[in-house]
C-alpha cells in the first residue's frame, strides 16, 4: 500500500492503495464517482474512459501510480446536471443513449478528439471511435450529437 495524491475534477485527493491498483477502481470505489465504469477491464470498450492531459485514457488499465500529479477529468467533471458541458448538452438534446453505460467512452473520446482537432473529418471521428462500444447501438443519435457539438464549437 502507498499513499498517493491525485487531482480529479479539480479536487485533491489522497488515497492509500496498492500502487498497481487501476485508476478506475480508485475513482469508482474510493472516490465513489459514477462516470467511469467497469466495462471490460481490458481497455477494449471505453466505458471507463477519463481525460488526462487532453487525451482520452482508459482508466481500467492505468495503474494509479502513473496518475499521480496528473489532472483527471471524468464525465461528471465536465459539467453538472444544472450546467452541462456543451458536448453533454448535445447528447441531452439528441437523447443520444439507451442504457447510457457506455457514455464515458463515447462522450470523452469524442471531446478529446474534437478539442485537439476541431475540424476532424467524419473519417477521423470514425477512426477515434473504432474501439468505443455501445451495445444498445444508439449510434445514429450519438453521431448526430457529436456532429452537433463539432458544429457548435466551431
Amino acid at each position, binding site marked *: 500500500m502507498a499513499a498517493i495524491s491525485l487531482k480529479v475534477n479539480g479536487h485533491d485527493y489522497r488515497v492509500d492503495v496498492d500502487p498497481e491498483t487501476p485508476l478506475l477502481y480508485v475513482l469508482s470505489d474510493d472516490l465513489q464517482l459514477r462516470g467511469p465504469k467497469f466495462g471490460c477491464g481490458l481497455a477494449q470498450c471505453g466505458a471507463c474512459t477519463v481525460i488526462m492531459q487532453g487525451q482520452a485514457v482508459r482508466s481500467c488499465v492505468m495503474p494509479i501510480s502513473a496518475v499521480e500529479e496528473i489532472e483527471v477529468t471524468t464525465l*461528471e467533471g465536465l459539467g453538472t446536471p444544472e450546467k452541462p458541458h456543451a458536448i453533454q448538452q448535445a447528447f441531452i438534446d439528441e437523447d443520444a443513449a439507451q442504457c447510457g453505460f457506455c457514455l464515458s467512452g463515447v462522450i470523452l473520446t469524442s471531446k478529446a478528439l474534437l478539442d485537439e482537432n476541431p475540424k476532424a473529418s467524419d473519417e477521423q471521428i470514425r477512426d477515434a*471511435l473504432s474501439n468505443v462500444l455501445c451495445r444498445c447501438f444508439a*449510434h445514429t443519435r450519438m453521431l448526430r450529437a457529436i456532429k452537433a457539438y463539432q458544429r457548435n464549437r466551431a
Partner: protein
Amino acid sequence: MKKEISRRDLLKASGALVVCFSAASFPDSSAVAQEPFDTHPSHIDPEKLDSWLAVASDGTVTAYTGKCDFGQGMYTMQTQLVAEELCVSIAKVRLIQCDTSVTPDQGTTSGSQSTPTNFNTRNLAQAAATAREALAERAAQRLGVPADELTIENGVVSAKNGRHVSYGELIGGRHFDIPVSSTAERRLPSEWKVLGKSVPSMDRVGLMTGTFEFIHNVHVPGMVHGRIVRPPEIGATVANVDEKSVQHVPGLVKVVVRNNFVGVVAEKQWQAGQAAEDLKVTWKPGGELPVQKGFYDYLLKQPSREAMLVNSGDVDNKLKTSARVLKATYLHPYQAHGSIGSSCAVADVQADHATVWSATQSVYPTQHGLAALTRLPLDSVRVVFVRGPGCYGLNAADTVSYDAVLLSQAAHRPVRVQLTRQDEFVSENYGSACVIEQQAGLDASGTIAVWDCVTWSASLGGRPGYEKPGNVITGMLAGFAPEAPAPRRAAAPSGELRNGNNAVPSYVMGCVNGKCGGAGSIRSERVLTRTVRSPFLTGPLRSPLRLQNTFAHECFMDEISAYAKADPVAYRLQHLRETRLIDVVRAAARAATWDARPSPTNGTARGGTASGRGIACVAYEGDNGYAALVAELDVDQASGQVHAKRFVVAHDCGPISNPEGLRNQIEGGVLQGMSRALGEEITWDQHKVTSIDWQTYKTLPLGIRVPLIECVLIDRPAAKATGAGETAITLSVAAIGNAIFDATGARLREMPFTPDRVKAALSSRE
C-alpha cells in the same frame, strides 16, 4: 454516498403508507395458479389500488411498477402513462420500479411484454384510471356537482362555477382503500396530452453528466469486494481449493467454496482480483464438448423434445404433387448478450435477512432463487432493482446476484461482486444455436402450395423463474440442476395456434382445430419444433428464437420468390392475409421507393462492389407488433465485407406511447441486429468457450459507417398496445441476407455473415 433504500424513507417520501405488508406467511407457490404474466401472488396485492399508486398531500403521485427500465425507455413511458391517466404533469409523478418490498409482482421485465401488460386494460394503466375516477368522484361530493361536469387539470379538479379542489386535498397521504376497477375508463388516445408525445428519456441528464446511479455505483457501509473463480472448462468440478495460496494477498477476507462455486472476498476490488487470480484450485476435468465445426450436424443427431405447432395433415402428399419442391437449411450460432458492462451486484446477507441490489429483470423470481441459495425464509429476502447496462435478455445480472449472496453469507459482510469480462462471457446464458430446415412446394403457377418446417434449437437452463436456481451458472455450481429438455414425441397440435417464438412462418394459415391464427394464406402447413439439450447454458436473448426463426423464414421466402422470378415484396403480399402485416410491408416498400423486380439484380459483375436491396417482415410473436424492414447495402466481393447503407423500417405497435422513444428502440434494434448478422458468434474448443472478450467476440463498434435509418411509424390508436423493443431487431439478419443475395446472387444460410462466409458463398455461385 451511503446506498440505503429504506422502506420507511420510501414511504415517507411518497407521503402515504400504501404498501400492505401481510403478516401471513407466503402461500406455497406451487399450490397457487400462476397469473397471466407468469407471476406468483406476492404480499402486495395487485387487485388493490393502493398497491399501485399513492397521492401525497402536495399532490405528487408515487406509482409502483414491476416493469423496470434497462434503457429501453420503460421508466419514461410508464411515467407518461400515470401522468396521462391521472391528468397531472410528468413532474408530479415519481415511479418506483421493481423492489420486492414495495412493488407488485409482475414477474419478469421481458419478452416485449411490459407495454402489453401495463398499458392496456389491466395493472398500472387500469390502476391509474381507477384513481382518476375515484378522485373525480370524491371531488364531485366535495364540490356538490356531478362528476361528469368536472374538469381535471394537473391534479386540480374544477367545477364550472370555478370551485376547485386538488388531489392532495382529496386524498393526500391516505389510502384509497378500493380495488382496481376493471371498468374504469382509460383516457382515449384522442384526448392524450402526455402519452403519445415524444417525451425525452427522463434519465438523460443524469446519464450524460455521469451522475446517474447504476448497479455498479451502489455502495453499502462496510461493503467489501468479491470476485468469482469459474471452472476453467465446461463441466469441470472442484477437487481441491488451496486457501493458503492466497494468504499473502493483502486485505483478503475469505475464500468461499460451495460445491463447485468458488469465490474470494477482499477489502478492495483490486485485492479481490489478485486473490481470484492467485487462488490455486484443482479442477476435475469436465469432459469434451462437441466439436464446433460439426456442431449443427451433432445437434440433428440428439434426442429432442418435439412440439407440433401446426399440421394440416396433407403436407407429404402435397409435396409429392407439387410442380417444384425447394429445400434449404439455415444455421444460427450461439450468441452472447454481451452487455457493455460486465455484471455487478451487491448483497448484504445477515443472519436472519438479506438485502440484494440487483440489475435483474426479475426481482421476485430472483428473491425466490436467493432464498433457496441462502436457506433464508422467502419474506426475509429483499431484492431491489438498480439499473445495470442494457441486458437484452438474460445476461449475467441474475447469476452475479447469486454470486454476491453466496459470498456475503459466507463472509458475513456486505459484498459487491464485479464480474470480469471473461467471467461475463462464460457466465451468461447464450442465445440458442438453431438449425432450421425448410421445404416448400410450388404449384404450376409459381404460388406456394405447401410449407414444411422443422426448427431445432439447443436449450439448457434459462430464466431461473421462481423455482429453478440451477438455470444459471452460479445456481448450477452451487448444486442445483438446470432444466433440460426431456425428449418427447410430438402430439397433434391442440388448443389454438401458439406462435410466441415465430416458429410458424407468416405465410401459412396457422390452423389449429379449425381456427386459423396465422398471418398467411398457405393451407398445407406443418411446423415441428425440436428442442435438444445444449452443452452450454442458454436463455432468452433479445427476440429469442423469434430472430432465429424469422431469419430462416424470411430468407427462405426470398429464395422461393427468386425461384418464382417474382418481386420479393409482391410475392410476400401474394401470400399474406394479415392486414397489419400487409400494411407494414407496403409502407416500408413505399418509403424505400422499392425497386420492384425479381432478385438477384441483373448484370452484377463477378467482382468489385455489388449493391442490393432486401426485405423482411414479421408479426412478432404472432400478434405482438408488426414490422417490415428494407435493407440497402454494398458487398465488396473481393473482401467479403458487407456495408449497409440504408434501412427503412415500417413499424406498427398499436397506439404509440412515445414516438421518439420508439424510434430510438427501432434504430438500436436494427443496428444490434446488423451486428448479430455480420459478426457475433460464440466459439469454443474441446473444453471451453474461447470467445471471452471483445477481440474474440466480434461486435460492431461506434466507429462504423452508420447506415441511414428511416422509420415509418404506423399509429393505431384503437388497437391494443403491443411490445416494440424486439420487433425491428428480428428482421435485420433476414433483410441483410436477402440484400446480399440481391446484390450478388449468393445466398448466405449460416450466420454470422462474416467476410469468409460471404466469400465462400460468392465463390460457390453457379
